[in-house]
């Protein structure tokens, strides 16, 4: 793999979307790294993988997925994990991430990130699962805080405490989604800074930024818009504490021209630069 640049990921990257692949290969925009959605590359062959190969030869990447179903009470899906492992072997991402959530039970997948109850029982369960996954993949994984639209009556601790405990006890790294923290704070009525106060800072290796939509009586995490001003503010507070952690612009619906994503990434980069200067 000598043709691949062996650079460490830093700065503000962009989520790789299939409609931009060719343009990225042709124009090679100045973007420090791309995040690849693992589930888009589970096919055995075809153009998607071939293009990813080309992108990978130009840029460092990370793998981000939604399929681990870490919180599920089903047995782990080792077929899925094996596919993920071979994808990681082939494309050598700097790291692999998924969410603190579940997407399946009874062998049936809903393909949407469902929240765990913040209980000791769920904590013990998900910690054991992350252990198993890290053993199987032979690497430490990053766990992301999801956006949620419900909370359970039997919660025994706040979600930021649950998130911190999961990371500490399973010794995994953290992908802190600033937008999700903001959305949850607004939807469930707590101060978004509670998350910051609880974060084990040294574990935060990546930050996500995205846009949400204001619906009737709640915020919905559409990943379909520019990053909103209060999320930028929370981002600034975050990197003041964590330092200039690699940051990703996530955009999944109504995907705009690559230029719009690059512009958002540049905004994030400016904030990262400011933090590194003052540090």
């Amino acid at each position, binding site marked *: 793999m000598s043709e691949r640049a062996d650079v460490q990921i830093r700065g503000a990257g962009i989520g790789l979307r299939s409609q931009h692949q060719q343009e990225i290969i042709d124009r090679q925009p100045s973007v420090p790294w791309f995040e690849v959605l693992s*589930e888009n590359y*589970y*096919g*055995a*062959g*075809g*153009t*998607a*993988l*071939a293009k990813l190969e080309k992108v990978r030869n130009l840029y460092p990447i990370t793998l981000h997925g*939604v*399929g*681990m*179903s870490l919180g*599920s*009470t089903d047995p782990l*899906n080792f077929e*899925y994990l094996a*596919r993920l492992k071979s994808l990681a072997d082939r494309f050598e991402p700097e790291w692999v991430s998924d969410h603190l959530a*579940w*997407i*399946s*039970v*009874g*062998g*049936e*997948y*809903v*393909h*949407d990130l*469902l929240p*765990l*109850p913040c*209980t000791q*029982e*769920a904590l*013990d*369960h998900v910690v054991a699962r992350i252990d198993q996954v890290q053993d199987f993949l032979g690497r430490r994984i990053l766990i992301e805080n999801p956006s949620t*639209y*419900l*909370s*359970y*009556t*039997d919660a025994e601790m706040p979600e930021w405490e649950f998130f911190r405990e999961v990371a500490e006890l399973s010794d995994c790294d953290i992908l802190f989604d600033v937008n999700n923290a903001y959305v949850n704070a607004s*939807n*469930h*009525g707590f101060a978004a800074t509670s998350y910051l106060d609880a974060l084990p800072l040294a574990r935060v290796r990546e930050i996500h930024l995205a846009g949400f939509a204001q619906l009737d*009586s*709640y915020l*919905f995490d559409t990943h379909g818009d520019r990053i909103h001003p209060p999320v930028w503010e929370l981002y600034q507070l975050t990197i003041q504490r964590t330092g200039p952690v690699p940051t990703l612009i996530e955009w999944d619906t109504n995907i705009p021209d690559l230029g719009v994503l690059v512009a958002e990434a540049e905004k994030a980069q400016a904030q990262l630069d400011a933090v590194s200067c003052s540090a």
Partner: protein
Amino acid sequence: MQRLNQLQHRLREAIMAADADGTAVRVASKTVNATRGLSSPEHLRIYRRAVTGTFKRALGQLYPVTMRLLGQQFFDGMVCRYMRITPSLSPDLADYGSSFAEFIEGFEPAAGLPYLPDVARLEWAWHRAFSAADETALNIDALSEVPESDRARLLFALPASASLLASQYPVQRIWQVNQEDWSGSEEVNLDEGAARLIIWRRGYDMRIDPLHDSEWSLLSALTQNMPMRKLSQSFPDMATLLPHCVEHGWIAGFKLGESTD
């Protein structure tokens, strides 16, 4: 984790239930907090909508022509029915929807478009071919290196990307005129005749090739794992038909089967 397991089953049932106000939603609501202007069932409804939206989007991308023929609203309604009786069994959403054509076949409100199930079959075949394993074309000369004594045991394989599709309707034409970049006439004469197609990928080039009777029969026989010994009996023109199919790329490999005699 018994409590957690029960909660997850209840939540999934509430999300997948057809009735937004039925028992499943009522039961799950008891475990969900009501907050700032949203009741417990309303919290669940957010997830119900999100999940339905995910399935509609996924099948809409996989079956764009089917959707175009039905209109988005009708199509979405059909997906809603389909997803309730067809659970997704893989974390990879790309695996979902293989039985959609069979579902459409039994879906009374779509019976007015009798060619629709075959259009959906074509779209599934296309979807499969798109991400099937990469293969290099079979070199016909490799065949001549098989010793004469082994030839009867030869088994041939279609490309990993290939699907055969027979329809009494001109589905290739229907598919073609419903492509986004199609600029010709959108009229299709349903009496235009039956279609026998192979949907596959050559390199990265997606293909839908119409097949003649003899080509169709041979390729169908190959999917049944028929060895050379039997093929030669069934196809008197094997000596030309086989190289012809190899040349088109419709045969991607061969191996030696068990010797039976």
